[in-house]
């Protein structure tokens, strides 16, 4: 056992790890004192959660589990960013970038996997080179993927135009037609006339409408464009992007010309959410900041109207909507913010289990909203990003409050979102000429298919040759101009085409053996952390017995995506074949029952039983893959 790991392992009590090939850490000492153990546990987990030192980055090995990454996964953590390769639906190896808290939450908690951390020590300038390279590759690849998505959108838009349907654009749901002119928009209109001329809006509208009528999909000649993973691409503007932007600008100018008001669904109205009015009353200091924000947003609108950007339509609509919300806040004396969740479907169901924890959620989100609001109104310089964080904090609070009050599903996306409010907007009833539309659609389809194939050649994914492990090594090697330089910087260089590199746990072993690594650590999985915590409070033997199977476990409930099994096999490697045999029998028995029920359940139980049996097979050979997964609410 590596003595350097002793503090972490003692701190987590009986945390264990299996690295695919059944090697395991032996059991180790437990503290008699529960208090000391709890403190060390907290220190151990905290030490893993802390950012890597400035002159190192972390190589992560994420243990196997059922579902995605059933053979384990590897990643690099540099600062707060985690870089890792994923296999996406189109068949590419995509370089993903996640923030460490989210990455840890998904793999460590929800997917219940231990994460092994090996810090790679290197010079600060080499670390920066590694970081720059991974960021660059990520940005370049995502530009390619954005263009592929735009080609796909071209097809969809052409079909809509063929049918005479109004396209769906971001921001079209911020405003609705109104009978009266809204004072704040009228004031904007007057100032635009003063700055740019009395006929500015009319003139610009006519120009844009003419442009829209004549806008056609041009031949892209994509064969002439090089697709490189190391050079930032210059793509021609996609038909859909240009068309939708023109539509967005037209809508924005019509809103400015009068007859529109902020849509109720677009902002966070305390009344409709049932939030007490006193929670959103504007204080005098806040009022003065809101007046500053109002002036800033006005300047944003003027700047965007004349901006040379080719994508200013949606930002202009967003600035108009935020301006209207701030103006309404000043008028009514209560904080009115845009709703970043507008247009989303509810994703938190109204189950009894959910509502047990909802009161605590409301308290937590109310506190976050209050703190975010305080911080925002103390800023020396109000900025869009901070305003957006405030919008999200308010939305989370309002939504959970309404969910608690009404006992109905509500919206709670994990990401921080920009208000989008999509809606349909476009010249009514105008259709593209059928022959022209058909030709354009055919060309769009051909462009999409051809570009996708070329992209696959640059970013291939192949389980046996080009996977998450090999591509991580390949990108890391590309940072350095020679094998010698890589070896000097990292301690060694690995060959991405070597067989051993293909398998994540084996790659991690090679890294720890050959690279210049510091003290390794472990971020225990959700279940292992809970077991350790419970073991501090009760007889550990009893806890492990109770948690060893799904029938008596207080921690585990089967979730969609988990296979059918009876016994956890992570904990007792030496008994694994026996436990695996029980799981195998259970899976086969379920499959047998599934044969009988297949006319009624479309073969679901049969499939689940076979899947459960399949993931029991490695257990017969002392190999644990399956660990169960956990709900976000546990």
């Amino acid at each position, binding site marked *: 056992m590596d003595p350097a790991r002793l503090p972490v392992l003692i701190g987590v009590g009986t945390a264990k790890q299996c690295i*695919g090939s059944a090697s395991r850490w032996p059991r180790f000492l437990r503290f008699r004192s529960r208090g000391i153990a709890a403190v060390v546990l907290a220190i151990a987990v905290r030490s893993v959660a802390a950012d890597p030192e400035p002159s190192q980055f972390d190589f992560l090995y994420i243990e*196997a589990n059922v579902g*995605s990454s*059933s*053979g384990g*996964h590897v990643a690099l953590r540099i600062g707060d960013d985690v870089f*890792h*390769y*994923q*296999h996406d639906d189109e068949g590419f190896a*995509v370089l993903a970038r996640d923030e460490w*808290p*989210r990455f840890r*939450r998904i793999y460590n908690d*929800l997917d219940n996997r231990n994460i092994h951390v090996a810090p790679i020590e290197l010079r600060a300038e080499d670390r920066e080179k590694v970081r*720059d390279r991974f*960021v*660059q590759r990520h*940005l370049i690849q*995502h530009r390619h993927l*954005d263009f592929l998505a735009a080609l796909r959108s071209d097809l969809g838009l052409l079909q809509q135009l063929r049918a005479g349907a109004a396209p769906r654009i971001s921001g079209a749901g911020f405003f609705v037609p109104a009978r009266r002119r809204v004072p704040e928009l009228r004031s904007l209109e007057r100032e635009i006339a003063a700055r740019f001329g009395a006929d500015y809006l009319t003139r610009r509208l006519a120009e844009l409408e003419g442009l829209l009528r004549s806008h056609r999909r041009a031949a892209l000649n994509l064969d002439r464009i090089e697709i490189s993973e190391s050079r*930032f691409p*210059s793509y021609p503007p996609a038909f859909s992007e240009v068309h939708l932007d023109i539509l967005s600008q037209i809508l924005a100018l019509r809103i400015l010309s009068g007859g529109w008001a902020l849509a109720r669904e677009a902002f966070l109205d305390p009344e409709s959410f049932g939030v007490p009015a006193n929670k959103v009353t504007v204080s005098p200091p806040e009022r003065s900041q809101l007046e500053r924000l109002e002036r*800033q947003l006005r300047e944003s609108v003027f*700047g*965007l109207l004349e*901006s*040379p950007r*080719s994508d200013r339509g949606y*930002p202009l609509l*967003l*600035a108009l909507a935020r301006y209207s919300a701030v103006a309404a806040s000043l008028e009514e004396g209560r904080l009115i913010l845009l709703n970043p969740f507008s247009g989303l479907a509810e*994703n938190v169901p109204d189950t009894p289990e959910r509502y047990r924890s909802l009161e605590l*959620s409301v308290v*937590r989100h109310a506190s*976050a909203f209050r*703190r975010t609001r305080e911080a925002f109104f103390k*800023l*020396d*310089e109000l*900025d*869009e*990003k*901070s305003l*957006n*964080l*405030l919008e*999200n*904090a308010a939305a989370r609070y309002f939504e959970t409050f309404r969910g608690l009050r009404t006992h109905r599903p509500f919206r*709670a*996306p*994990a990401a921080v979102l*920009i208000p989008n409010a999509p809606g349909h907007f476009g010249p009514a009833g105008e259709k593209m000429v059928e022959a022209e539309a058909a030709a354009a659609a055919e060309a769009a389809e051909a462009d999409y298919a051809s570009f996708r194939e070329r992209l696959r050649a640059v970013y291939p*994914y192949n*389980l046996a040759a080009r996977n998450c492990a090999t591509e991580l090594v390949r990108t890391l090697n590309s940072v350095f101009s020679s094998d010698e330089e890589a070896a000097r910087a990292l301690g060694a260089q690995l060959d991405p085409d070597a067989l051993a590199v*293909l398998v994540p746990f084996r790659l991690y072993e090679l890294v720890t053996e050959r690279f210049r690594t510091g003290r390794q650590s472990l971020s225990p999985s959700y279940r292992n952390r809970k077991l350790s915590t419970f073991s501090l409070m009760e007889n550990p033997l009893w806890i492990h017995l109770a948690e060893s199977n799904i029938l008596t476990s207080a921690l585990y409930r089967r979730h969609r995506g988990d296979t059918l099994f009876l016994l956890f096999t992570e904990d007792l490697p030496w008994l694994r074949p026996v436990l695996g045999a029980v799981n195998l029998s259970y899976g086969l028995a379920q499959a047998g029952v599934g044969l009988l029920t297949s006319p009624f359940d479309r073969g679901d139980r049969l499939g689940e039983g076979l899947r459960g049996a399949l993931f029991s097979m*490695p257990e017969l050979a002392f*190999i644990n893959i399956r660990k169960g997964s956990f709900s*976000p*609410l546990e």
Partner: protein
Amino acid sequence: MYRILAYVLLLSTVALSSGCSISRSFSESSESVSDSVSDSVTSISGSSSPKDGIGEAKIPYRDDVANLTLSVVGSNFSSKNFMDAVGRIAAQRGISDWQSEKATYYGIGKGLKKAGVSKERIQNQTFLQGVLSSRAEALSWIQRGYRY
């Protein structure tokens, strides 16, 4: 019989042990990632010092713009393409009006410095013409980015 079982074991282990991650859609709720939500909303409080002008929450955006700038210096990247690229990065980071955001210009300055472009030669960069003409403070803000 035992040989067949051994092959099945071997094959299933190999088949199951080499998978890589399939893309996850961002479907989990904020109720499951309260720590990261809490981190993002409280990063406002690390914001805007008068000297710096950008907050903690915008450092990743600034650095992405720096990386983009570093990548295109010396290439034939057009001004229009550069502004498009900045717009995409900004959108990914939750910023729609990037022309009003100081972090944009600081990032450009940081990238130019890394690329070895002197402050005196900023205005010679073809790909920056659109950005430089977008607002009066653009050049001075880019120069401030050389601090990083």
